[in-house]
């Protein structure tokens, strides 16, 4: 039953944002004196409007065919973890293997492993924990012949939850590694 539930989670479509290279950041002065800084306070509002430019696309629409086919293991790209654990559970091993086989067959293809943690505990410790999860998946890929150069890791800790809730149901979906393919240039 639990495994079944986990599979359902895996089917949730992973969407990733291509706008990463256009990450819009700016820095502003903080006027301890009477310097006018209020205009800067609106910086956020301006950026918010630009968000319309962001395209959200799925692995499937980027990669085509097998990534869209729900019968293919490649359509599953989220690995979930137990509490405070970075061990890839057996139920997810074949998902990792499917991606490993694809990456071995397409050695020019690069993948990003995004590590995540649930919100409990300290944020920086969670960054470390989520990196350990992503590294566990990376190790499995490499053991099956994927080149380390094909893999990039970023650990987000608790900063990018997939679910908003503050309960067990949300936490088990937030403890995850997302496998996303980088667009080939």
């Amino acid at each position: 039953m639990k495994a079944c539930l986990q599979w359902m989670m895996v089917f949730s479509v992973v969407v990733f944002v291509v706008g990463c290279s256009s990450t819009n950041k700016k820095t502003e002065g903080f006027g301890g004196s009477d310097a006018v800084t209020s205009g800067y306070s609106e910086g956020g509002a301006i950026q918010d409007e630009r968000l319309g430019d962001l395209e959200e696309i799925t692995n499937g629409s980027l990669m085509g065919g097998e990534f869209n086919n729900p019968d293919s293991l490649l359509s599953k790209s989220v690995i979930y973890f137990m509490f405070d654990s970075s061990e890839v559970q057996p139920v997810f091993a074949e998902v990792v293997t499917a991606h490993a086989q694809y990456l071995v067959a397409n050695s020019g293809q690069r993948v990003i492993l995004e590590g995540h943690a649930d919100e409990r505990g300290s944020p920086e410790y969670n960054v470390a924990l989520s990196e350990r999860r992503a590294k566990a998946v990376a190790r499995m890929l490499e053991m099956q012949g994927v080149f380390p150069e094909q893999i990039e890791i970023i650990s987000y800790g608790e900063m990018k939850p997939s679910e908003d809730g503050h309960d067990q149901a949300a936490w088990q979906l937030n403890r995850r590694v997302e496998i996303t393919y980088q667009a080939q240039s």
Partner: protein
Amino acid sequence: MVVKNLKIIIVLWLAMLVFFSHSVSAELTIQITGGTKSAIPVAVVPFAWRGVSGHAPINVASIVSADLTRSGHFKTLPVRDMINKPSRTEAIKLGNWRALAQDYLVIGEIKQNQDRFIIEFKLFDVYRGKQLLGYRLPATARGLRRTVHRISDLVYEELTGLKGVFNSRIAYVTQKKKSKRVSIYRLKVADSDGFNPKVIASSREPIMSPAWSPDGKKIAYVSFEKKKHRIFIQTLATGQRSTIPRGRGINGAPAWSPDGSQLAITLSKDGSPDIYVVDLNNRSWQKLTKSYAIDTEPAWSPDGRQIVFTSDRGGKPQLYTIPSHGGSAKRLTYQGDYNARGSFSKDGRKLVMVHGNRGDYRIAIMDMATKVFSILTKGPLDESPTFSANSGMVLYAKIMNDKGVLSATSVDGSMNQVLTFDKGDVREPAWSQ
């Protein structure tokens, strides 16, 4: 005068609009709960307005009352209970205040001189009938709130002998969701009571772990811009920022040395996260920890000799110390199954941390001499504790009504203040020292 039951619950729905000149407004609600038997009764009389327009631009008495109340040391008299409201010495009837069991009295007035203001205030000892303080403080319209917090500091310092922290600042990170997968993260700096927030950096990728330089002029923080961890040091006055050389993987948890010349950080470039010390003058690194476990969240002892950090080398996250020039690590905490994010009080005698037991996370303080723990908060999802400069209060992040909010508590746990911002989640507070 003994007041029997001082269990007070004060809810200050200040809910005041913080105006920016471009009509951007943010609503902030401050809720204060608690009270102690030893709280000192003080009456802060509404200040008289002597200006050209109809009413004063700021309610001095309510801000000073709120500041004093949330320190946990004072109980302030509600305005409706005041028999009269003097603003000058000659109008004070000491008998009235004695009858109301007030130990101290604050009165004053605001004068306007074109676009500038002068706030005058006096502090009296009601029983001895003696003036303890008297100040005239000039202020610009923009600087009014900070000046009022300065009054709170002066009163607090006179009556407690401790340095006031109301005129300090806090930094924190807000997250506002734009869609399921897109959020805007903003690093903000505000007055210690959450007013006058200003955005100092914003990004679509997470911003984390702000840390004030000891002189309060810079903030170090972690930004995930371009999907890479990077530590920035930003000068508040100019908005200019520099970065320290990054390593592959985690670059996080910056902590300033007490003299501001070094930064302790976490890097995972060699595999597992380890603690490093970076010299900010020549940007050289020294690696302090070399375990295969997670070592992160460094914080310096006040004398700069030790660094406390979180490590799971024993299986679960616990706090350890290591000499800041290198040496062997020593385990510090044994109570509970999770102790993380430690930081020292100014005198080095206390350590505040996130303390977890079976999935319940609270803020706790450990006495360094006796190793006795006291739990300050109710949990279950409390994190990121930061001491005030006088170590009398702790600011931390928690979840309330499904929202990330900031909360401040006195170190004896008697007073609690919640800052709720209208929009989005707030986390990762840091209090200027």
